[in-house]
Every structure is written in C-alpha cells, then in structure tokens.
C-alpha cells in the first residue's frame, strides 16, 4: 500500500518554466557600494540608505543561525546578485499597456492574469518579478477608498513619512541574520496602508516570481492597518526549475492598530528542488505582526515549495484583548526540509492566540514545527491553544515538533497538544473499495487532515491551495 502512496506523491512542479526576458542584473557580490548603487537606482531618501548601511554593518557581525532542524551547505553571499530587473522596467511603465507582454504572459502562465477585466473582481494584485514590482492592479478603486497599495519603492517616494515611521518597527534591523541582510539589500515588495475605520474593499495580493539565475530575492512587505480598519492580504510565490539553490530572504511587517484586523495568507510554492534535493529555493523569511488593543492578526500559510523553509510568522500581542492566529499546512516531500512555526508573544491582558499546525512529511523529507508561546507577567487572563498534527507518509521521512512554552503569569492558560498519524492502510482500502484511485484517495485524506487550516484561507486561495496540494500529490495520472 505504501508504495502506491509513494507513487501518488511523485509530483511535477508546474511553475518551473523560465521566461526569456532581457534583464538588468547586478554583478554578483555584496559590499557597501552595492547597497549604495541599489539605493541610488531607486532614488531613495538619504535616511533609507543610512538605515540599509547600518543593517549591513550589523549583519557582517552576525552569525548564521544553526538551531533549525535543517541541513544545507554554507551559502556564499558573494556568489549572489542582489538586483535583477527586466530591462523594460527601467522607465517605469505608466499602465498595463506599456508592460512587456512577455512579463504579462509569465503571470498568465502562472494563472494570475494581470489585466483587470480578466481578473476575479475583488482581488488587487501587485506582481513582483525578481527585484521589482511590475504592476499593481485596481489602484484607482483602492485609492477611492483611501487605501494605499503600491510597491514599497514607490511608497518611499510618495509616502516617505509613513514608511519611515513603520519600517523596522516590528522586525528590528538586527532581529536576526536574514532579516538584517534583507534590511540591507531589499529591492521591492508591497506597501499597504489602510486608513482609520476603512474596510479594504477588496483582497490585496502580491505574486512573487523569481526568474533570473543566481539572484537572491529580498522583498519587504509592510502593512499598516490603522485604527478600526480591516484588510485581507494574500501572497503567492513561484520560481523556475534550476539545479542551483537560490536564496529568498524576505521580511514582512504587520502593524494592526487598535481594533484593526489583518488577515495574511500565503501560498508558498517556490521551486522545491528535485527528488534528490538538487536545486530549489532557500526560503528564509521573517514575518511578524504587532497587535495593539483589540486588534487581530491572523496568519494562514500553505507551504508546499522551497528546498528549505525557515519561517515563523509571529504575533506580538501588545494591546489588551488582542488576538493572534496561526494556521499552517506544510507539506514536504522529496528531499525538502521545513522548519516552520510561529511565535505568540502575549504582553497584554486577555490576549488570545490559536495555533493550528499541520505537517505532512513524505519521501525523504523532514518537516518540523517550531513554536514559541510566551506569556508575559502582565498578560493576565491570556490564553493560548496549540494543536500540532503530523502526518507521515512512508518510512523515510521525519516529523518533528519543538514547542517552546514560557509562562510568567499565573492566570494565563497555555495548552499544547500534538499528535502523529499516518495514512493508514485501512483508510486507503476503504477509499479504494468505494472506487477511488490511490492518488485521489491520498489527496482526499491529506486534504481532510488539513481542513481546519484550509477553511481559514480566503475563498479564491482555498481553491488554489487545494489544487496545489493535489498537484503536489499527483502522480502519473494527468
């Protein structure tokens, strides 16, 4: 039976194509001059350059973290190019009509049409291609509502004060090794500002695409939801299939002011490398949000890609009654390695957090949940509930759980539960006896296992995530 399951799991990566687009790419290597050049190209204010340089200098002093349950050869940071952009983007296109058609075709191939009339109404997209934002849709409609949704490079020009106020306020420059690197060399990303009391009229989303070889992608996303506002944001990621590893070190910062809600969903499908672990993206990401009084941040992630995932979307529950949520599905197969989880830092009174993590390991992969729940001395009446479930498929993979719990408050309650299961022969037999083929059976059982998380995804994405999982689990049957 397990052979059938294995077979059902052999997957092909559908986003693995490369687009022939003429690009302007920096020479490999990193020093202060690269950062100055990058900053100058983007015409950044002086303080931004200073900020980057400070981060760079701090990074030089820092050590690469080694505590995660992952193994990979040392990264040569001088062998990476820190900027690559389609040539056609040099004079920023004013409208979609001026965008290189090859770029638009790339996104279409990925199932993300950028022509507004073709899109699902209700989703605005910022498309980031290598180091730059290519296009942002539905801007007018959003502007009417007072919502700012633009590339962060543009925000630095148009709303420098807003950016200056919040950038680095949640993830400090020296937070960790990869975050510091990102601060020094980030190229683009999305900026979102939702004014007081505004409910963002549509879902916002960013699609990240790595295209060029030997480039790193270092994007930075900053979302500020002012008092009483509400926003739902989605991100998706893909990359071509290559034999070399590529680095993706992003930083995402969320600020939820009093009574604001931010829902942040990710469907991560970077190229995972081949069965033997050759190639694939190193996905080293820092994501964190801060919740002020009565605010809520909800992270939902479906992680099926990347050779290595190192990512802990976190919530700092600073304000009283604030709420943090983390819903995660991480599927690893082949030689993939994932070390992912969350941190819930309870500072305010009556803060609440929920963590639901579903890890699925197959092939020779290793899948680890790592999380921290911290109850500060002032977090009276705070509550956390954590559920970590692992599903093992085959006997060559590993599933691991490393939950750290720290409490300093006698009235805080922390509950952690973890279970491990497998796709049982009995389940497979029942499904097949009812006429389902093994592939469908596995994908159905796995989808059932993930249900609690999928139901948290916005509709459009839930469908996509389900499909992604199905593709990931798909075998020879087309």
């Amino acid at each position, binding site marked *: 039976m397990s052979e059938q399951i294995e077979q059902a799991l052999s997957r092909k990566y559908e986003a693995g194509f490369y687009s022939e687009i003429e690009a302007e790419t920096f020479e490999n290597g990193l020093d202060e001059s690269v950062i100055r050049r990058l900053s100058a190209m983007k015409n950044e204010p002086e303080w931004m350059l200073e900020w980057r340089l400070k981060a760079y200098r701090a990074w030089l002093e820092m050590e690469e973290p080694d505590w995660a349950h992952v193994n990979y050869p040392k990264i040569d940071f001088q062998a990476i190019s820190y900027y690559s952009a389609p040539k056609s983007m040099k004079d920023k296109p004013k409208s979609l009509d001026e965008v290189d058609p090859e770029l638009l075709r790339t996104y279409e191939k990925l199932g993300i049409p950028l022509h507004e009339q073709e899109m699902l109404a209700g989703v605005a997209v910022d498309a980031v291609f290598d180091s730059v934002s290519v296009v942002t849709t539905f801007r007018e409609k959003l502007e009417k509502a007072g919502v700012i949704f633009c590339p962060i490079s543009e925000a630095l020009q148009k709303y420098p004060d807003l950016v200056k106020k919040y950038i680095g306020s949640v993830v400090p420059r020296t937070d960790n090794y990869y975050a510091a690197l990102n601060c020094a060399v980030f190229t683009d990303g999305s900026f979102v500002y939702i004014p007081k009391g505004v409910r963002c009229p549509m879902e916002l989303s960013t699609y990240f695409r790595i295209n060029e070889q030997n480039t790193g992608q270092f994007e930075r996303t900053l979302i500020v939801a002012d008092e009483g506002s509400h926003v739902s944001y989605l991100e998706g990621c893909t990359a071509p299939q290559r034999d070399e590893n590529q680095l993706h070190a992003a930083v995402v910062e969320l600020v939820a002011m009093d009574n604001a809600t931010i829902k942040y969903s990710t469907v991560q499908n970077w190229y995972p490398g081949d069965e033997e672990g050759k190639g694939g993206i190193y996905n080293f990401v820092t994501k964190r949000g801060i919740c002020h009084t009565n605010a809520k941040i909800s992270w939902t992630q479906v992680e099926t890609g990347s050779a290595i995932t190192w990512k802990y979307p976190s919530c700092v529950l600073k304000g009283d009654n604030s709420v943090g949520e983390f819903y995660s599905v991480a599927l690893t197969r082949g030689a993939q390695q994932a070390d992912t989880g969350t941190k819930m830092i309870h500072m305010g009174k009556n803060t609440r957090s929920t963590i639901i993590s579903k890890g699925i390991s197959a092939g020779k992969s290793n899948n680890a949940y790592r999380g921290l729940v911290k109850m500060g001395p002032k977090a009276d009446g705070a509550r956390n509930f954590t559920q970590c479930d692992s599903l093992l498929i085959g006997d060559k993979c590993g599933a691991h759980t490393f939950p750290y*719990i720290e409490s300093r408050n006698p009235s805080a309650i922390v509950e952690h539960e*973890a279970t491990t299961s497998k796709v049982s022969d009995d389940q497979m037999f029942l499904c097949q006896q009812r006429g389902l083929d093994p592939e469908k059976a596995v994908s159905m059982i796995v989808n059932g296992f993930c249900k609690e998380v999928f139901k948290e995804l916005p509709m459009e994405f839930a469908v996509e995530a389900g499909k992604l999982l199905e593709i990931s689990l798909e075998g020879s049957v087309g």
Partner: protein
Amino acid sequence: MSQWLTKVIDVAQENQDFLAPVRQQAITQLQQAGWPSQRAEQWRFTPLTPLKDRTFSHAQATDSVSVPEIPGLDAIDIVFNNGTLVTSLDELALPQGVSIVSFAQANAQQQDDIKTLFGRIKPQAHVFGQINDALSHHGVMIDVADHAEITPVIRLINLTSADSDNHTRALVKLGQHSHAKVLEFGQGEHDSMNTAVAEYSIGDHASLEHYRFAFYTANAKAVGGTHFKLGESSNLNSTVVGYGSQLSRLDIDIWHSAENAFAKLNAIYLLAEGELFDLHTCIEHAQPNGTSEENARGIIGDGARAVFNGRIHIHRDAQKTLAEMNNRNLLLSRRALVNTKPELEIYADDVKCAHGATVAEIEGSELFYLLSRGISRQKALVMLNFGFIQELVNDIPNKAIASWLQPKLSERFAHMEVK
C-alpha cells in the same frame, strides 16, 4: 573556562584507577568543550552561574550521617557522604540473587563488568556526566541475577555536607526475568554540589521499580542523571521527585534498546520561593513495539523557575511505538516562571505519538464549587492545586514510600503561597 571546571580537571588527573581510559576520555572532552555557554540549548533556561567560579573543599565523610527513615520500608541502604562510600558493603545482609560491590573492591572479573556498564548507557555529550565520569572514584555496581526477585528496596543515598562536593556513580544490572527496586536519594547542605549519576541496564523481561528523589533546597546544588537501557520486553516504572534549589538539574534518559519494552515515568516538582528545578527527559525509541508513558507535573511558587524539556525520539526502525508525554504546570505567582518544551522527533510512520503541555490556573468552575461549599479561597486553591500532584503520588507502587512522601509534599506545598 570556569574556575570550578579547571579544578575538576586538575583533581581528576591526579587520581587514576582501572577506569582511567574512560575517565581520561571524559577529561579530554571537558577540556575541548569547556564550560557550556548559556546559548547552548541544554542550558538555555538554567544559568550555571552559581557554580561557574565556585570552589569546594574536598571534605571527608562525616562521622555520622542521618539517613532518611521511611517507616515500614524494607530497605538495603548504600550511603555516600561527600563523595565517599561510607557503607561497609560486606556487612550488608543481602537477599540471594543480588551482589553489590564497590569500585575500589572490585576483583578483576567485577572490574570488567563495571567497564561494560560505566558510561555505556549515559549519553556522551553532557558536561556534568563527563565530570562524573572523571571524578566518580566512589561507586557501586549492583548485580541482580537472572530470575532473581529482590523484594527490599535498595537505597542509594547521597548526602553532601556544607561547601563540599560529591560525585558518585551507581551501576545497576538486572539479569533476565529479574525484578528489583531501587531508590536514589539526594540531599545537600549549604552551598554543596552533587553530580550523582546512575546507569541501569535492565535485562530482557526484567522489571525495575525506580525512584529518584532530588531533595536539594536553598543553595545546595545538584546536576545529576539517571539513565536506563531497556532490554526486550522489560518494564520500567520510575517516579522522580524534585525540589528546587539555586541550581537543581536532573537528566533522565530512557533507551528502548530492544523490542517491546515498557517505560513509565512520573515526575513531580514542587518549587518554593526563588528555587529552580530543571528536568530534562529523553526517551529514545530505537526498536519496534515499545511503549512509553510520561507524566511530569509541577507547581511553581513565587520567584521560582521550572524548566521541563521532554524529548521523544522515535528512530526509523521503531515502528508500532506508542509514546505519550504530558506536562502540566501551575504557577502560583506572577513572579513564577516556567519554560516547557515537549519535543517529538519522529522518523517512523506507523507510530502513535502524542504529547501535551499545559500551563494553567485552576479551573474557575472547580474553584467555584469549593468556594460554594464554604471553603476559603486560599485553602481551596491549595486543595485544587495539590490534587494533580496527588494523582501521581497515588500512582507510586510502593505504599510505604508513598505514605512517607505524601506529608512531605503537603508540608512543602503548605508553605507555598498563592500570590
């Protein structure tokens, strides 16, 4: 390097015996690794600063030692005082089927037996285990013959006087189908230090009833370990009780080295004001069809800190393993702190594995029920808090030990305040 460790290494190099090669290996490792950094995962939550630059006098054994009396307990006592074996083993009345020999008196054959156990069950990479390897010139080997049923409880008692240190070793070998009961007891006076290590090899189909009571308080320091190797279809039932002190750390390792073994570990810790207790447990399921059940429960008083790191590691071959671990903690004050980490590392797919950890206050409805019956709030909290510890006390197989322990814990708890 710490002053203390430097002294340890100096002392260790002066004394040599038939275990010299193993001891030398430990010394080399200590020299290479040096004093553990607080960033090391093993010591993240337990600062070693109280020990780092201390020096201890090498005290002689005192003339008389007071051994804890457990009423109604049929016991064989082996007492170590300040690192010296003070019991005259020849004078012990031992039941048939068990032999006890000290390292110093071991004959050639016994020395060989000791060598096959010493340091073979304990995991290598643990600084204090290595320190004990280097310094434990006083130790005993307890050998239980195949099929022997030893009814008295063999007590290994470690007592340390003020400002002294104590590094002893016990090696326990249970033959096939045998049964024995062993209680390890440790207590230290003002500013003492103890690193007692015990290694158990439990033979096929053998069963061990085990206790380790780490009754260190105030600034009596202890970092010790108990390490079990389980043979096929063997059975371990262990109860650990820890008080907290300035530095009290215990490592328990359970290694399912053969199929079908069963291990049960219950741990209780009660930490009064300002104390620390750090319990690291690791269950290695290396072979199929093993079962382990672990329950660790603690109450943490004002300004105290509990650290629990429970690890379950299921190896590739350990199919059909059943492993459960549960950790419950109650904080009595907002100056109390708990760090708990129940970890799972699983490489086999056909296993049932679950763990849970809770940090909680008492259920409002339970409290309400007691209050509504006219019980004072303070008293009600005490009653409710103690209940979940009491469950583990009730689970102790030896009634004499349970009855002796019970009032000790209650008394200790009575002095802890709910703030």
